[in-house]
C-alpha cells in the first residue's frame, strides 16, 4: 500500500501545462528521488502532493484513499510535510519561533518560550546546524535558513517528508549531514522524497529515482540501475558527452583585478587575489567564509578597507552603478531577494541592469525585445512568454533569468555567486560552455561556488577562503577535491 500517491494528475496554469497525467507512488520507509530538467514539473507535482495546490485533473491518495485537501493544515494532519524550493520563513521572528510557528507550545496563555527553544535546539542538533535558537532569522545566511527550514519540517514528525532541492544552498558539510539525516529518517519508517539536480547525491541515498520530462512521467529506476549517465540521458533525452568544456587557456598576462588585504567589517579580514584578463577564477570556501561579502565589497555594495585595483588603477566603488560603468557586474547568490524582481516580467528583469543601452529617454522596445529573445534562447529559459512574472518560473529558470540580466550588460568582469544553484545538469553544462566561450572572447570571470566539481571543471584557477582570509590557491593538476577540501576546512594534509 503506497503511503502517498498521485494518480494521473495534471496541472495547468494560464498558458502552461505544468504536469500532464503523472502517476507516482511513494512507499513507507523509502528515499525516493525525483529528477528532471528545470521546469519539468517537479515542484508543481510536490505542491499537489502536499496540498499547497490542487490538481486540475487526477487524484491524490493517502494510503489508498483519495484526499481533497484545502490548505496545508489538512495535509500536515495527514502526515505530509514539504520543504519548499524557495525559503518560506519569517525574517522578523527568531529561529525557535519560526520552528514553532503554527503549533506553538503554550504555558497558560503565553507561548512557552523555554520549550520552544528546547525543541528548536534538539532539531537543530539533528540537522547538525550550529545555530542559536534565539537568532533572528533574517540574520542567518541562506544556508542557515535552509537548515532551519529542515528542522522545522522535522518537527512535524511527518510520515512523508518532501524536500525540494534542499541541498542547493548547502555546502559539502551540511549536505553530508542532511543525507545522513535522510538515512536515519528512513530507518524510522519515514518516507523521504528528495529533489536535487546533483545526481551524485541522489544516487548515493535514493532507493528509487523517478524522472520527469516536460511535465510527463518518464521512468522510475531502482537503486541498482541508477548511474549518472543513464539518469542524465533520461532527463535531457540525449547523451551528455562532455559535461565541462575543455580548458583552453584564453587568459592574457594583464591583471584586470587585484584585491589586496580586503577587509569587510564583521566578515573578511584579509582577502587577496588577482584575476587576469580572460581568466576564469574560482573562489572556494565554506559557508560563512566571506566569499559573498568580499564580492559585494568589490562592486560597492558594502563598505570595506584594503586596496582594490582594476585595470591597473586603484578603485573604490560606492555603488553597483559605478562598478557597472567601469565594467564589473555581480550576480547575487540570493536570487529571490536580491537577484530578481519576482513580481515583474522575465523581460523586464533581463534588461533592468542595462536599460541605458535601450535609450536614455525612450525605450527602444524592439531592440529590447530582441535581446530578451536572444537570452531566452541562448540559455534556454523555459517560459511561455517573456511577459510572465518571474515568480511563475521554476526555480532553475529563475536562476537563468538572473544570469541573463548581467550577461546583457556585457561586462568586462563578471562575478558569479553560485551561478548554477538549482540549474539542471543539461543547462549547467551549457552555462559552462557559455562562460568558457565568453572568456575566450575576452570576458573575465570570478566564480564563487560551493560545488567543488564545478570549480574544478570550469575554472582556470581557484582561490580558497577560510574565515575571511585567503588561505591558498590551486591551479591545473592541483585542483582536486581532496586538496581543495583540505584548504577549505583548514585541515592539514
Amino acid at each position, binding site marked *: 500500500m503506497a503511503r502517498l500517491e498521485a494518480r494521473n494528475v495534471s496541472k495547468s496554469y494560464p498558458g502552461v501545462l505544468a504536469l500532464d497525467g503523472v502517476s507516482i507512488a511513494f512507499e513507507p520507509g523509502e528515499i525516493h528521488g525525483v529528477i528532471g530538467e528545470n521546469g519539468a514539473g517537479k515542484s508543481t507535482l510536490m505542491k499537489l502532493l502536499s496540498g499547497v495546490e490542487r490538481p486540475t485533473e487526477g487524484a491524490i491518495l493517502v494510503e489508498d484513499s483519495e484526499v481533497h485537501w484545502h490548505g496545508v493544515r489538512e495535509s500536515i494532519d495527514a502526515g505530509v510535510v514539504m520543504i519548499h524550493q524557495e525559503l518560506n520563513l*519569517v525574517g522578523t521572528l527568531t529561529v525557535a519561533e519560526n520552528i514553532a510557528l503554527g503549533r506553538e507550545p503554550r504555558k497558560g496563555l503565553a*507561548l512557552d518560550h523555554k520549550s520552544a527553544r528546547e525543541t528548536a535546539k534538539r532539531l537543530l542538533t539533528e540537522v547538525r546546524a550550529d545555530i542559536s535558537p534565539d537568532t533572528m532569522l533574517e540574520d542567518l545566511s541562506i544556508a542557515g535558513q535552509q537548515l532551519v527550514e529542515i528542522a522545522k519540517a522535522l518537527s512535524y514528525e511527518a510520515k512523508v517528508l518532501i524536500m525540494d532541492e534542499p541541498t542547493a544552498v548547502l555546502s559539502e558539510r551540511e549536505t553530508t549531514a542532511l543525507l545522513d539525516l535522510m538515512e536515519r529518517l528512513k530507518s524510522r519508517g519515514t518516507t523521504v522524497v528528495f529533489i536535487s539536480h546533483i545526481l551524485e547525491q541522489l544516487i548515493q541515498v535514493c532507493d528509487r529515482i523517478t524522472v520527469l520530462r516536460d511535465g510527463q512521467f518518464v521512468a522510475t529506476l531502482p537503486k541498482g540501475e541508477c548511474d549518472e549517465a543513464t539518469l542524465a540521458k533520461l532527463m535531457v533525452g540525449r547523451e551528455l558527452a562532455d559535461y565541462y568544456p575543455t580548458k583552453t587557456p584564453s587568459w592574457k598576462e594583464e591583471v584586470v583585478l587585484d584585491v589586496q588585504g580586503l577587509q569587510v567589517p564583521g566578515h573578511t579580514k584579509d582577502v587577496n587575489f588577482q584575476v587576469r584578463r580572460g581568466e576564469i577564477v574560482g573562489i572556494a570556501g565554506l559557508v560563512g567564509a566571506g566569499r559573498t561579502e568580499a564580492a559585494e565589497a568589490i562592486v560597492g555594495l558594502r563598505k570595506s578597507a584594503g586596496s582594490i585595483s582594476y585595470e591597473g588603477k586603484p578603485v573604490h566603488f560606492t555603488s553597483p552603478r559605478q562598478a557597472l560603468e567601469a565594467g564589473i557586474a555581480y550576480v547575487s547568490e540570493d536570487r529571490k531577494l536580491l537577484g530578481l524582481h519576482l513580481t515583474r516580467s522575465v523581460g523586464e528583469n533581463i534588461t533592468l541592469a542595462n536599460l541605458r543601452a535601450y535609450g536614455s529617454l525612450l525605450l527602444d522596445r524592439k531592440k529590447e525585445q530582441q535581446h530578451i529573445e536572444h537570452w531566452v534562447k541562448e540559455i534556454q529559459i523555459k517560459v511561455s512568454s517573456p511577459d510572465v512574472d518571474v515568480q511563475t518560473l521554476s526555480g532553475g529558470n529563475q536562476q537563468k533569468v538572473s544570469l541573463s540580466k548581467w550577461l546583457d550588460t556585457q561586462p568586462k568582469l563578471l562575478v558569479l555567486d553560485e551561478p548554477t544553484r538549482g540549474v539542471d545538469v543539461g543547462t549547467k553544462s551549457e552555462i559552462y560552455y557559455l562562460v568558457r566561450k565568453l572568456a575566450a572572447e575576452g570576458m573575465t570571470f570570478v566564480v564563487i561556488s560551493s560545488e567543488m566539481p564545478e570549480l574544478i571543471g570550469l575554472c582556470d584557477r581557484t582561490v580558497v577562503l577560510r574565515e575571511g582570509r585567503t588561505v591558498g590557491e590551486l591551479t591545473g593538476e592541483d585542483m582536486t577535491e581532496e586538496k581543495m577540501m583540505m584548504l577549505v576546512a583548514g585541515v592539514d594534509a
Partner: protein
Amino acid sequence: MKFGPFMQKWGVLAAFLVLLGLNIVMQPQVFLKPDVLRNLFSQNCGVGIIAVGMTLLIVSGGIDLSVGSLMALAGGVGIMVMNKSLEGHAPEMMAVWTGVGASILVSVAGGLVNGLLVTVGRIAPFVATLGGLLAYRSLTQAIADGSEIASKSTGGLESLAGAGLPLPFIMGSNHKPLMVQWIIFVFLLAVVAATFLLERTPFGRRLVAVGANEKAAVYAAVSVNAVKLGAYAIVGLCVGIASVIGAAKLNSISSSSMGAFYELDAIAAVVIGGTSLSGGRGRVWGTLIGVLLLGMISTMLVTANVSIYWQGVVKGVIILLAVLIQRGQKAA
C-alpha cells in the same frame, strides 16, 4: 551598542525626553507640575488605546482608517442605549454599563466588518477601511441628525472618566493629592496587555508572521484569515473602549467631531514609535511614547502660546526631528 542601532532602538524615547527636558527648562512653572504629566496621559487615553490596537494591526500588515468614525458611532449608539435604559427607569449605573456594552458591541462588530472585507472580501485594507471612515461617520450623523448626542445620565457616565486613585505625597495644582483617573490605568493596562499579546503569545507571533511573510505563515498552517480578523477585532475593541472614555469625559458625543482625525494621529503615533508600516515588526512601548510625544507637542503649543497659524509648522518639524533621530530604520 553603537550609536546608530542604539538610536534606532531608543531614539523615540530620547526624542520624548529631550522635548520634555526643553519644556521643563523653558517653562518650569508649568512643566514641573505633576498635573501636566497626569493630563498628558488622561488627555491621550482615547487615541492612545486606539494606537495600541493599531500597532498590533499594523504589525500584521493591516491598517484601519475607520477608527475615528467607528468611535463616534459606537459612542453614539452607547449613549442612546443608555438613555433608553434610563428612560425605562433602570438604575443609573446599570444603564451606564448597558450603554458601555452596546458601545463595545458596535465597535467590535465594526472591526469585524473591516476584517471580513479584508479577508473574505480580499479588499486592500486601505480601501476597505476608507469605506468605513466615510460610512460610519455618516451613519452617526444620520442617527444624531448631524449634531450631538447628549447623555441623560446624571453623573454616572461621567464617573467612568472621573475619580481614580489619589497619589500619596504628590500634590496637584489644587493642593490636594493628585488624582490619577481610572482611564489612565485602563490605558496602561492596554499597553501592557498588547505588549504581552504581541511578544509572549502564539497569537502575537502569528501576527508578526502574517505581517512579515504571509506565504510563510500559510505554509506553516497558520490560519491567516483568523489572525487578521483577530487583529481587526482587537482594534474594534480598543475603539469601543476609547469611545466610552470619550463619551464619559464630556457626557455626550458630537457626531461630527468625535474621533475626527484619530486615524491619522493613531497611525502617526505607531510609526513614530518605530513600528514599520509594511508590517512584520513593531513595538507597543514605542507607540506609547509616540502618543505621549504627540500629546506633549499639543500641550506645548498651548503653554508656549504658539500662534494658531504656526502650530502646524512646529508640530510637523518636531515630528520629523523625532523620527530623524531614529533614522536608519527600514522604510515603512
